[in-house]
């Protein structure tokens, strides 16, 4: 089996050296970019990365700039490395299309869990859902190609947004709890005061609303979300 390839974009060289070593010992192939532009160049030239670890605080081109620019040409899953408690950073990252975030300082077990979850999700679609496609009203979802169309128009969704919508669609008309979304999409237990699922759903809603203003996803306060059947 080929090793999964992780791209680390962080200006802290001592940290990236250790991360490199740590991930390699755990069986990953690792590339390191120590500034934003270098990271973008790497993504541009050879886009064979499975996960990108992207630091927010970098000189010249920060993590948000990199994320914004890379989303123009690729949807590789991104984990943002943010400062803990800085809601603004976290929310902005998720809004710009990050798949997950990991507050610094992070625990190595947590890091491994997040990376694994994103890679697992990716292979999951590639292997087991080859022919699977779902239609709910005007929304049609093709798992194999990871494409979604709404009212005939194609939606540009990140991996996490796609996975969330796919999960909601599989159980359309039924409540899907935030805990279930977190476990199946992000591969981790829902933590208290964690709003990332809400952010991803909000992104999906915005993208759907840009095409058609009909309400599609209903929030059930404190419980979860329902994809409405027409």
């Amino acid at each position: 089996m080929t090793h999964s390839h992780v791209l680390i974009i962080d200006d802290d060289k001592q940290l990236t050296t250790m991360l490199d070593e740590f991930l390699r010992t755990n069986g990953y192939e690792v590339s390191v970019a120590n500034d934003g532009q270098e990271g973008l160049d790497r993504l541009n030239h050879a886009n064979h990365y499975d996960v990108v670890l992207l630091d927010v605080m970098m000189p010249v081109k920060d993590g948000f700039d990199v994320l914004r620019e890379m989303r123009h040409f690729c949807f590789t899953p991104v984990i943002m490395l943010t400062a803990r408690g800085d809601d603004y950073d976290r929310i902005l990252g998720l809004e710009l299309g990050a798949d997950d975030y990991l507050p610094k300082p992070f625990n190595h077990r947590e890091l491994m869990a997040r990376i694994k979850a994103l890679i697992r999700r990716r292979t999951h679609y590639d292997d087991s859902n080859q022919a699977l496609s779902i239609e709910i009203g005007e929304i049609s979802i093709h798992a194999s190609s990871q494409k979604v169309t709404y009212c005939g128009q194609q939606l540009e969704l990140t991996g996490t947004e796609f996975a969330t919508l796919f999960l909601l669609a599989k159980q359309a008309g039924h409540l899907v709890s935030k805990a279930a979304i977190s476990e199946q999409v992000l591969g981790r237990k829902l933590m208290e005061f964690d709003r990332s699922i809400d952010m991803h759903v909000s992104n999906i809603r915005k993208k759907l609303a840009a095409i058609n203003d009909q309400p599609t996803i209903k929030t059930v306060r404190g419980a979860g979300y329902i994809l409405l059947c027409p």
Partner: protein
Amino acid sequence: MSIISRVRHSVGLRLLIGFWATLLAAILCIWLVAQWQKSDVEIARVDSQDIRLLDAAKQRTLRAFNRVGTIEGIKDLLANSRKGRVVLYDVGKQRVLSPPSRFKRRLDRDVNELIEQSTPIKISRPPYQLIGPVPLQLAGKDFLLFVQRPGKEGLSSYPNAPYFIILVLLIMSVLFSVFFTRSIVTPIRELYKTSQQLANGDWRARVSEKQCKKDEIGQLATGFNTMADKLAQNWQGQQRLLADVSHELRSPLTRLNMAVALAEQAAKDNAVIKTALLRIEQETAVMEEMIGKVLTLSRAEAAMAKKEDLSLLELLEPVLSNAEFEASQLNKSFTVSAIPNITVHVQRDAVQSGIENVIRNAIRHAKGRIDVQLSEVANEHQPCWCVTVTDDGSGLAEDDLQHIFSPFYRAERARDRKSGGVGLGLAIAKAVVTAHHGNIEATNHSDGGLKVSLSFSKRS
């Protein structure tokens, strides 16, 4: 609001009324002076026609006196002549005998001025002319005779003029006063508005260039802008410092964590090293939590974040749903009263984290029940909205109640527990409440638990 209290509360209105009244008074004074000095009196020599008129009047008076016999009797008779009214001056009694007239006072004055004259002259004082004097004797007494007749210009030539002038003056003075008042009040208003924006955390708010003139108010505006620049600089400096602290302190912690990870891999099965590393990991987590809380606290104390209008529901929904989730994970019941449908003006993140801290504290210490009450207090002086969080834990000692909002203060019950936190949550809540001109208070509930009440001013 009554007019008086409106005037009392508005410099603009006061200036307007004061200035307008002054203007009107000044105009009135000038008009009166002009009226008084107005020399529309014309003095002329008598011509032959006037002499004839005087002669005719003299003859008429003598004839009338011969017929009636008393002075009083002829007075009324002489009043109604087409050729002019006769006015007599009694030299002996020094008294004017004139028929009743609208202009009696002026007439008497004019007569008195003419009695010294040896030959007749003519005074034109619209609306009448007075010609005389002609001496004559009636019943052996000396009299002077004058003829009063309508002048060339009657009163009708300017009856409406004063009203028209008054109207024009009124309009002009109102316009002028409004213009003047606005020139003073507009910059003051703008200063006020800008200061409010600054107070609400809009650091780019400045008084516009056009108000920064050379006059005193302009200087005030310029000074105000300089002050705002300085404040904004300080604030930016502080924000940068906070961000730097956050970044600089966390980077070594992140590296420490990674080093622990590598060491852990190398340690393989050495239990002693593994335990020690686990300990290092735990302590890094505590330090990290403290850094986060200290940052939140200093942000809340600086109270610099921008305030925004949002509905109470929108503000509290994420906090409450998260708390509900956390409580359910711990098998504790979490109840919330109805959320009042009001709009509040707050620093969203700060207030959310303040309330969150109080609720999490309650969840941590509750035996099995947490209750959140939301209410709106419609006090006229200080309208506010309140959050009251009650748990069914063991409460606190009276001494602790005073101190739990101090940073790093931890009551006994908190120290006993593993989940004690770092002792900054309630300090953050207090700082947030203070920044919103509110109040926070902890009391022991009658059923034994702790009750924390937060109130936020609506106007904050």
